[in-house]
């Protein structure tokens, strides 16, 4: 396995940190006591079996859970040093700093241009020139500009699945987020498109921090610097089983659960 260059852990550089963090939805505890840091300019992968709460964990970072279900948090979730659960952080500002990409590409039914600048317009940017600049810049970051430069004002639905997903990444990058959350971003794509996106993420981490949920162990091994492994106990409440540098967790796991999960998955 070809493991990417390892970055020295740096406690000053924690962009996100979970401290004894737990979530319950409609009275059902999904996970609890989760503690691990997310380092700046690194890719942190969240792994675990289906239903272990990976998506839930990801969606609590930008408090997206709040909009759609009856959610209760416990513990602390620090974003750039501030507890976004208890410190009364403005969710709109929080979300402007945190980009998000979903499992299935979900462009809006508008033009490519409209999609990329949606976030900027939300925040009141009306200047055509600025919007255009940011649009081009964001599309270039995801390597889509060359492919779509002649049809910026054509419907985004005309793009292929892989292109749509890159468009969605560009859309989340347009507001210069500090963190980008990706929930299985390549699971609905073909291997080639997935590879393009993986490549893209390894470049992207130079300018922001990436948290990615993935079912694909090879993918986690290829691109991530750190992994967090969630696993449900017999009451179906998940805990963090192991967190560490990807290489360590993959080749030298401390927990037997991690070892068997990795062996079972990759074997």
């Amino acid at each position, binding site marked *: 396995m070809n493991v990417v260059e390892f970055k020295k852990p740096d406690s000053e550089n924690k962009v996100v940190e979970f401290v004894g963090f737990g979530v319950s939805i409609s009275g059902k505890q999904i996970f609890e006591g989760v503690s691990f840091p997310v380092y700046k300019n690194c890719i942190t992968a969240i792994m675990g079996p289906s239903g272990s709460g990976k998506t839930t964990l990801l969606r609590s970072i*930008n408090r*997206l859970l709040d*909009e*759609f279900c009856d959610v209760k948090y416990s513990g602390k979730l620090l974003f750039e040093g501030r507890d976004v659960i208890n410190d009364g952080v403005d969710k*709109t*500002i929080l*979300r*402007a700093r*945190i*980009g*998000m990409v*979903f499992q*299935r590409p*979900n462009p*809006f*039914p*508008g*033009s490519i241009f*409209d999609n990329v600048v*949606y*976030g900027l*317009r*939300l*925040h009141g940017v009306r200047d055509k020139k600025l919007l255009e600049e940011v649009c081009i810049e964001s599309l270039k970051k995801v390597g889509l500009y060359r492919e779509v430069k002649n049809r910026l004002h054509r419907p985004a639905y005309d793009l292929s699945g892989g292109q749509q997903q890159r468009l*969605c990444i560009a*859309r*989340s990058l347009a*507001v210069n987020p500090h963190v980008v959350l990706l929930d299985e971003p390549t699971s609905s794509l073909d291997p080639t498109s997935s590879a393009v996106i993986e490549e893209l993420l390894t470049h992207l981490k130079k300018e922001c921090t990436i948290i990615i949920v993935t079912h694909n162990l090879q993918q986690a091994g290829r691109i991530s610097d750190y992994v967090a492994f969630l696993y449900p106990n017999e009451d179906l409440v998940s805990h963090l089983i192991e967190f560490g540098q990807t290489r360590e967790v993959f080749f030298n796991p401390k927990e037997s659960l991690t070892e068997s999960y990795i062996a079972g998955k990759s074997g």
Partner: protein
Amino acid sequence: MAKEVILSAKAISIRAKRRKLAEKVFVVIAFISLLAVLFTLIQLLSSVFVKGLKWLDLQFLTSPPSRFPEKTGIYPALIGSTWLIVLTIAIAVPIGVASAIFLEEYSGKSRISRSLDIIIGNLAGIPSIIYGIFGLAIFVRYLHLGRSILAGALTLSLLILPVIIISTREAIRAVPRGLREISYALGATKWQTIRYVVLPVSSRWIATSVILSIARVIGETAPLIAIGALSFIMTTPRSVFDPFTALTIQIYTWLSKPQQDFKEIAAAGIIVLLLLFGFFMAIGSAVRYRAGKFKE
């Protein structure tokens, strides 16, 4: 054992043949029904056009009604109906869409919201004459609007509001959840999400329900008679506070006259009604087409 028999190649092919036969029978029946409908429709329309077309001229379109067939015209009713449609849509669509947004997005799943659901559903099924009586009591009498176009439009608005609310709610509900999620995740407030995602995405469906409502407004007679729309009017309404008549009432008046000429003039009135309907349908479809093309 039994399963093997059921799944044997022979049994499968026999059943497949039977299904194909059933399909053929169905297609033939469906085609005959379609022909029957088309035939009736063409019969109806052609009889209307044959009778009415010769009375349909500029004089007919621009004159008030008269006792003499060759002098009579449809102008006041045409203007009355046009006013009614425009005003009713202008009143009912904003209120209906706003109510639907409130019910769907802001009121939650409370018991009140659910009972409102049932009430609105039932309101859509009430006979239109009841709306007319209600309109007479509230708009004509209580609010002193008289037998005016405004009273008529308000009454018809009440009539179509439940349908607009219900279909707008369905349209809003059909917006994919992923689009809302990403909108919030990009930092949108609830209102921004509604304004920039939910409404543009559902506008096509909302426009469809508005077009259907226009058809209803053009066709309604009973509630207008109940609020006292005039059946014979010489003057053309100049403002929304003037008395009025509508095409359907005018057509009915002509039909109830003994002279054969007026039966044919009624047919000409029906042609005008169809043309007016076609005109508003065209506008509605253009709006729907534009709405489908998501801009900003």
